[in-house]
């Protein structure tokens, strides 16, 4: 019997929502790590019980947590699970994210006022476990860089070729900071991956992370002096259907975009959306031309348009969009849905999930036709991921 596990990160802890394949009744566990900002949780595709979590705090810094039993118990990699710490020298460096300044000099990036500012590690925004090895996981961090662990999250090494690309002085923070928030692994080519940074743009590696190139041709951004610049674009999120690697969909600050050549060229597919500002975007698990976005009114008003919580679906790969409203509030709603807070399962019919800054997590068990809240009153939701357990 298939089942699903929805991993929810919030401003004040993590929650795990579990259901069978019908996705009608839900068991809710949490808060895990109560009081901490849980930026992202994600399960390993290679081991259903392995889950990684980014626990962070302005006071206490970055912690990486790991579960080896599907989220029932957690430990910091390198520290014994559920046991009191042993005396002796520190065993765990799982929260140590040190930029590799030997391989790529720690340069500066552009600050909000246009001056240059040194790179400073702040937190992990996104964790992307390997498709094949439970102990290998990538981390996208603020200030923007990508790290990799090959020992289950205990030790982290930067892939310095990205930060060392040479365009760093033109990267700048978005409103949420200068974060690397999207990591996509290519299931057909282990040497290829894509990342996205606010506000630098999208980058791709074709050699396992040694070298990276900006892939922003076709993006137009009015907030930078040259709207067509090679870097500097505020890409909010990118999604890809794993059955069709290389076809990418992007929610930029403004504009919904698609690429059919692995990111080398982008075209706008905003079409008839009421507003093309937004954060979240995802692709149907079985229909690679069916995509979902959740339009937000504007970059000045971070809430849904016209007080209506509407997911928009395109079954044509963009341009032609239909609002999905059944079961969602259609008046007096002023929540936001953040970039990592939408996910799909791979059941048939495809399930769609998203969480709001108002603490609701909504689910659709029929590809978006109808929606129900799984839970209504969590802290503000930062991220939503789904594990399909078959």
């Amino acid at each position, binding site marked *: 019997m298939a089942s699903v596990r929805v991993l929810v990160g919030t401003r004040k802890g993590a929650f795990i929502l579990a259901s069978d394949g019908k996705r009608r009744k839900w068991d809710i566990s949490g808060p895990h*790590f*109560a*009081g*901490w900002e849980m930026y992202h949780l994600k399960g390993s595709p290679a081991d259903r019980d392995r889950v990684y979590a980014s626990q962070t*705090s*302005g*006071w*206490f*810094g*970055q*912690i990486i947590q790991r579960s080896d039993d599907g989220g029932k118990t957690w430990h*910091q990699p*390198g*520290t014994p699970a559920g046991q*009191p*710490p042993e*005396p*002796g*020298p*520190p*065993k*765990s*460096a799982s*929260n*140590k994210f*040190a930029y590799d300044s030997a391989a790529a000099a720690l340069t500066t990036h552009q600050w909000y006022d246009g001056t240059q500012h040194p790179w400073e590690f702040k937190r992990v925004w996104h964790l992307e476990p390997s498709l094949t090895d439970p102990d290998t996981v990538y981390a996208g961090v603020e200030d923007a860089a990508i790290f990799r662990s090959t020992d289950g999250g205990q030790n982290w090494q930067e892939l310095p070729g990205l930060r060392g690309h040479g365009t760093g002085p033109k990267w700048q923070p978005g409103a949420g900071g200068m974060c690397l928030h999207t990591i996509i692994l290519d299931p057909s080519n282990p040497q290829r991956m894509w990342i996205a940074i606010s506000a630098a743009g999208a980058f791709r590696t074709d050699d396992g992370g040694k070298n990276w190139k900006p892939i922003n041709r076709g993006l137009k951004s009015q907030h930078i002096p040259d709207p067509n610049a090679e870097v500097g674009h505020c890409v909010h999120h990118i999604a890809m259907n794993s059955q069709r690697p290389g076809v990418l969909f992007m929610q930029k600050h403004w504009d919904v975009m698609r690429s059919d050549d692995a990111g080398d060229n982008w075209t706008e597919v905003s079409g008839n959306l009421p507003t093309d500002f937004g954060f979240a975007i995802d692709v149907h698990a079985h229909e690679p031309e069916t995509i979902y976005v959740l339009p937000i009114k504007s970059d000045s008003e971070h809430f849904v348009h016209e007080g209506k919580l509407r997911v928009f679906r395109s079954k044509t790969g963009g341009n032609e969009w239909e609002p999905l409203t059944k079961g969602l509030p259609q008046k007096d709603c002023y929540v936001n849905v953040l970039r990592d807070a939408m996910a799909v399962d791979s059941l048939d019919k495809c399930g769609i999930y998203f969480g709001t800054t108002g603490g609701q997590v909504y689910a659709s068990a029929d590809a978006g036709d109808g929606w129900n809240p799984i839970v209504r009153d969590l802290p503000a939701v930062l991220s939503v991921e789904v594990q399909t357990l078959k």
Partner: protein
Amino acid sequence: MIRVILPFHLRTLAHTEAEVMLDVAPPVTQRAVLDALEARYPMLCGAIRDHDTKQRRAFLRFFACEEDLSHESPDAPLPEAVASGKEPLIVIGAIAGG
């Protein structure tokens, strides 16, 4: 024994009570106490001070004997009352944000 009081979130991280007792050889300094604390609770490495520079995290403060010792040299001797175990060294989160 040196007494150290931890804020709520560091207690949960270290699976410990609010007050921990540490053996620290003289001279008893901030650095010596934090070294001992991190040795006993390795999950606190990086959560109180930077891994490499050992600088105090910006939103944490060190109080003892009704004084703010946050900006004292990490190698300065702590007050005798802390060194003798009469008073605790308090690690506390600054009131930042809202």
